């Protein structure tokens, strides 16, 4: 059953990722990103991370992608991008080669390092108790589980909450500071400046023919 869920969700995640880099219209790309993020949320659920699955859907698929769509609509850049021309010579082959290299190297690393599962010691301090099995188990089983594990059988959210507000409380507070700084920075950056801003200098479009680019440059130098 878990394998079936994994295969379906994994296929959806890859389809969404391909759509993200393949669609010409930014709105379509954003919607494919939602598909990919949602599939990853399902994979979180498949691995007993219920809280993170919910947060993934709410924060990523809900808030962040909506923010992206909002900016796309606000700026009016929702027209299709022309993907047929290659902006920099050799960019796509090199990008594909780098992407393939990343994939091959990481898969190689996984197959070498994690031969038959992850290596490393099991956690002693922050043990994760499988919430589904403990809630469906009978009380005596759960009690026995407590004694063997040395931890209480708590739901996933409660375990996370306890860990977050005890062991990781400093990081949590720093996170609050980070969010405050991000809000202040966003307000400062997006504020309409007083007075007219000088328009950004036009960059001459790199032209492969070579003939058209030189007059542009002289024109700009005269402007300056």
């Amino acid at each position, binding site marked *: 059953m878990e394998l079936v869920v994994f295969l379906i969700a994994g296929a959806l995640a890859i389809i969404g*990722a391909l759509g993200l880099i393949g669609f010409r219209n930014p709105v379509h790309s954003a919607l494919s990103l939602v598909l990919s993020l949602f599939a990853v949320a399902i994979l979180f659920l498949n691995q007993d991370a219920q809280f993170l699955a919910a947060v993934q859907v709410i924060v990523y698929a809900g808030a962040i992608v909506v923010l992206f769509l909002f900016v796309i609509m606000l700026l009016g850049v929702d027209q299709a991008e022309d993907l047929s021309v290659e902006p920099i010579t050799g*960019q796509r082959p090199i990008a594909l080669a780098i*992407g393939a290299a990343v994939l091959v190297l990481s898969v190689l690393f*996984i197959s070498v390092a994690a031969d038959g599962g992850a290596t490393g010691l099991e956690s002693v301090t922050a043990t994760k108790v499988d919430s589904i099995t403990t809630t469906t188990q009978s009380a005596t089983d759960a009690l026995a589980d407590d004694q063997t594990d040395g931890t209480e059988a708590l739901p996933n959210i409660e375990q996370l909450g306890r860990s977050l507000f005890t062991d990781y409380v400093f990081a949590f507070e720093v996170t609050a500071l980070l969010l405050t700084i991000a809000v202040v*920075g966003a307000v400062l*950056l997006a504020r309409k400046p007083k007075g007219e801003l000088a328009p950004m200098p036009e960059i001459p479009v790199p032209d492969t023919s070579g003939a058209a680019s030189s007059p542009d440059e002289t024109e700009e130098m005269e402007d300056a």
Partner: protein
Amino acid sequence: MELTSTWYLVLAAILFALGATGLLVRRNPLIMFMCVELMLNAVNLTFVTFGNDLNDLGGEISVFFVLVVAAAEVVVGLAIIVAIMRRRNEATADDLSVLRG
């Protein structure tokens, strides 16, 4: 066939590689940003996988913080993109070379 953590890790590697390829191929800064989000998500998947495999809550805690940092990053990044696009329409990532000193 049995579902092991290696399957999840390979899927995360594929998603990461797709995100990296998209980041290098596309020139629209918004789509490049979305590709970065996809790469972050792939890494989150590995965190959850290892946390599940090693029976450690630390993996899920890390994902929580990555989520928060990603949200903050998106807010500031989109504000920068809006500020640039307001001054100059149809900006691509190449046009940001005007930021040079």
